């Protein structure tokens, strides 16, 4: 690690060749079908797509998943078969076997190249079979990994109701407050909760798919400040998509949701709260503070709360302080994670990232910069569309203490004595909010703890000839 360079004053953005390893964005079906319980995801693509899903999702494939491939055959490609008739046949079969409340079509590279008009076919078929069909073009031509969720949620945003008349339906549309208050009358609930009195603020909708326990935690966190979350995009069920009217406020919980944010602003006329993301206690506090400031609320007790969380992390922080980390980049969580790890006392050489939306991530980038200044460490280089081969050269040169990377490189790097953490785990673990900060560090320190356990064995480099990379 060299600190010879003078510290740059502003973040340094680079863009390389885009020759990097990541998951195909269709992988989003794996977590979204579980999140949206009454959905069915139909991926319209080839054997290549199917093979990826089948292998990447491992055992989930056997659990009778609510997703399937519409596998295109040569007749579909050469238009000998009629797309509409074919999709109608398959969707009718899905309706008969599973009876979902929504069918989500995932467009792939192939449907893009042969220009299958999914957006055009969907409304016609929807009218014919009586099930909503949502189209998301989550393909590898345009997007990387978690951006798949972004395309699905952006399409879902268009389906959120904008006016609700019947009162009983309204109740169903707000499952979170129902869960928290458990059928009690609203006033009663407030009186009993002993929390801050609910402040009068415009409706707030949060977007981003998170496991239900994390949804509850973040909702409660805002409730402590008197902020009521009127809905989440996505909700547990498609039929519970939140009400979104013009003038509502919206705030993202994940860094890869640029399209959804744009759709909410432009199409649904929401006001976007640009905040850092609630990853790590620093991020969570900044996230809440930003929402509070927009609503003119003085946040209560956040500083103590954050300090307390940091205190409880001390055992892990000791392992991380002074160590360096290198993000190869594949899931767009990189900036937020780097910001948190720098706050933990690490230095960061490089943040590789598939795609950098400087507007949507603006607040997060500002917090990263501020964190670096406060911790007195050099600003990392942010490399958009990285080139994995070049990165491996840089890793060889810098020998960072921890490389956060995809599975394609993890084992080979470990065999060369470079400690790695598999990046995909951050996507599937619970990492949001105060309470889950420990889980992030549990992941980040695991290879370091493994190193400590095995350090006396002297078996670090396990390849014979030190290959070029």
């Amino acid at each position, binding site marked *: 690690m060299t600190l010879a360079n003078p510290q740059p004053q502003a973040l340094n953005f680079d863009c390389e060749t885009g020759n990097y390893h990541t998951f195909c964005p269709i992988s989003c079906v794996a977590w979204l079908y579980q999140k949206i319980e009454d959905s069915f995801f139909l991926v319209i693509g080839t054997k290549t797509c199917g*093979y990826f899903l089948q292998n990447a999702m491992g055992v989930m494939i056997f659990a009778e998943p609510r997703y399937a491939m519409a596998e295109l055959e040569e007749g579909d*490609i050469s238009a000998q078969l009629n797309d509409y008739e074919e999709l109608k046949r398959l969707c009718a079969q899905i309706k008969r076997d599973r009876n979902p409340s929504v069918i989500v079509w995932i467009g792939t590279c192939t449907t893009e190249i042969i220009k299958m008009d999914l957006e055009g076919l969907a409304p016609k078929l929807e009218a014919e079979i009586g099930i909503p069909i949502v189209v998301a073009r989550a393909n590898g031509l345009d997007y990387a990994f978690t951006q798949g969720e972004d395309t699905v949620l952006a399409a879902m945003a268009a389906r959120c109701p904008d006016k609700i008349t019947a009162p009983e339906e309204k109740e169903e549309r707000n499952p979170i407050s129902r869960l928290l208050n458990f059928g009690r009358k609203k006033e009663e609930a407030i009186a009993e909760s002993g929390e801050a009195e609910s402040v009068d603020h415009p409706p707030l909708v949060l977007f981003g798919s998170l496991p239900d326990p994390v949804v*509850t935690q973040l909702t409660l966190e805002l409730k402590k400040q008197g902020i009521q979350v009127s809905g989440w995009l996505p909700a547990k069920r498609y039929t519970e998509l939140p009400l979104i009217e013009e003038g509502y406020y919206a705030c993202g919980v994940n860094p890869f949701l640029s399209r959804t944010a744009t759709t909410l602003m432009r199409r649904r006329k929401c006001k976007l709260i640009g905040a850092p993301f609630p990853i790590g206690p620093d991020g969570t506090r900044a996230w809440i503070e930003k929402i509070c400031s927009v609503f003119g609320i003085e946040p209560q007790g956040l500083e103590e709360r954050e300090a307390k969380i940091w205190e409880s992390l001390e055992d892990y922080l000791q392992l991380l302080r002074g160590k360096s980390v290198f993000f190869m980049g594949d899931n767009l969580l990189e900036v937020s994670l780097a910001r948190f790890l720098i706050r933990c006392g690490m230095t960061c050489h490089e943040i590789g990232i598939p795609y950098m939306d400087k507007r949507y991530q603006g607040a997060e980038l500002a917090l990263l910069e501020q964190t670096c200044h406060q911790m007195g460490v050099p600003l990392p280089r942010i490399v958009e569309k990285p080139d994995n081969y070049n990165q491996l050269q840089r890793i060889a040169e810098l020998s960072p203490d921890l490389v956060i990377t995809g599975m394609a490189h993890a084992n080979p790097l470990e065999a060369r004595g470079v400690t790695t953490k598999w990046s995909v785990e951050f996507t599937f673990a619970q990492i949001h909010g105060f309470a889950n900060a420990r889980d992030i560090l549990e992941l980040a320190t695991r290879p370091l703890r493994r190193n400590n356990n095995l350090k006396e064995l002297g078996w670090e480099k396990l390849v014979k000839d030190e290959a070029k990379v």
Partner: protein
Amino acid sequence: MKLAYWMYAGPAHIGTLRIASSFKNVHAIMHAPLGDDYFNVMRSMLERERNFTPVTTSVVDRNVLARGSQEKVVDNIVRKDGEEHPDLIVLTPTCTSSILQEDLQNFVERAQLDSKGDVLLADVNHYRYNELQAADRTLGQIVRFYLDKAAKKGELPSGKTEQPSVNIIGLTTLGFHNNHDCTELKRLMADLGITVNAVLPEGASVQDLKNLPRAWFNLIPYRELGLSTAQYLQEHFGTPYVDVTPMGVVETARCLRQIQAVLNEQGAAVNYEAYIEEQTLHVSQAAWFSRSIDCQNLTGKKAVVFGDNTHAAAITKVLAREMGIQVVMAGTYCKYDADWFREQVGPYCDEVLISEDNAEIANAIARLEPAAIFGTQMERHVGKRLDIPCGVISAPIHIQNFPIGYKPFVGYEGTNQLVDLIYNSFTLGMEDHLLEIFGGHDTKDVITKEMAPDSDLNWTKDGLAELNKIPGFVRGKVKRNTERFARDRGLSDINAEVLYAAKEAVGA
């Protein structure tokens, strides 16, 4: 369009990549969109490979759609040639490039001008071939390319090796137990006094391919992979081949007798009968096992077999012929080679199923109710659902099917492994069955794991709801910690907030 939840054989490019990455110092460049390089993950994870998988992508993105790949593919090939100096770069088409219909052959020719290594375009069409067919074709293509090249340069060595020798063809990366099979086959050849001239493609160097014709014969252990190469070598160099899979006692003997015949035709004068007898009766335990009373108990038990051609056929024969088990159904997903399969297993099973549809196979298993299944990972899960034990005998496979311990399926040690696999599947089934009849191991009332403290605490509905979301194996611990937390603070009601506050405080 076809509604599919699962597939047995992968797309064509996987076959090509398996061949390319099996060779030493061969690099594959996929013409594919971002994310199609999942092969690297599989190789790195399943095989726990220490080296970087020599596969990169020339990414097809919007710009490529708009303007064509133009210089991109050529640049990527030349760049890789300069970076890693591979002997050969294989440009690998995917489903995407199949429909883009760019002139990849032209890119290859242009890249060849500026590359030190050789450059080839894998001749596989995504919509016509699957993984296995593509692998077979690509191997044939590479072998042909280097033999032609050597012939043109006049570098083909003349004549055979002095001692009888063999090329073992078809062992690849990500093949089912291929690395163990390879070791076992080499041992077997050593026992027979046969030199191994080459193993293809795993670990081979393309520079050595010109020596292939020096072998006395080719051994093709797997039906799916290597046959076209063997046929080519026979046509052009007159090298005979043996394509009997030495899996199971009888088939191993048959394989060895064919080798004997092939060598004797070339004047080797070998006789393997004594070796076969010694191995069968005293070294392999399989023959003895089939006489032992354990195996007697398996007589007439029903089994279903499903997998690729090689393994499903071999296991069917072992079960029926060597263990007296009734194979009620044998099936394969190698539809393109179904006639061979029918001919192989016809006499040994009641019913043959040729299908790529996992639901059809699951339904057949449910209908037949066998005592054990021998299939792929998919059949293992069908077995789980139906409570039928399953031994995994064929790809598609998971990481547990890449064991570190020595577990060949071929040769005499392979027969021992098969006995364990088959016997363990059945006894597990029997044990289960007996337990059910007698009502489980422990018929007394189950003592609760939870030591119930006479709780003065009240879990609210939402508190309980949240508690129930916590995975079962830690729920007890979380519950105890939360209650302690609530007691310490004098709280009488535990709701979701208390639960999460406790989680934070205790780190539970």
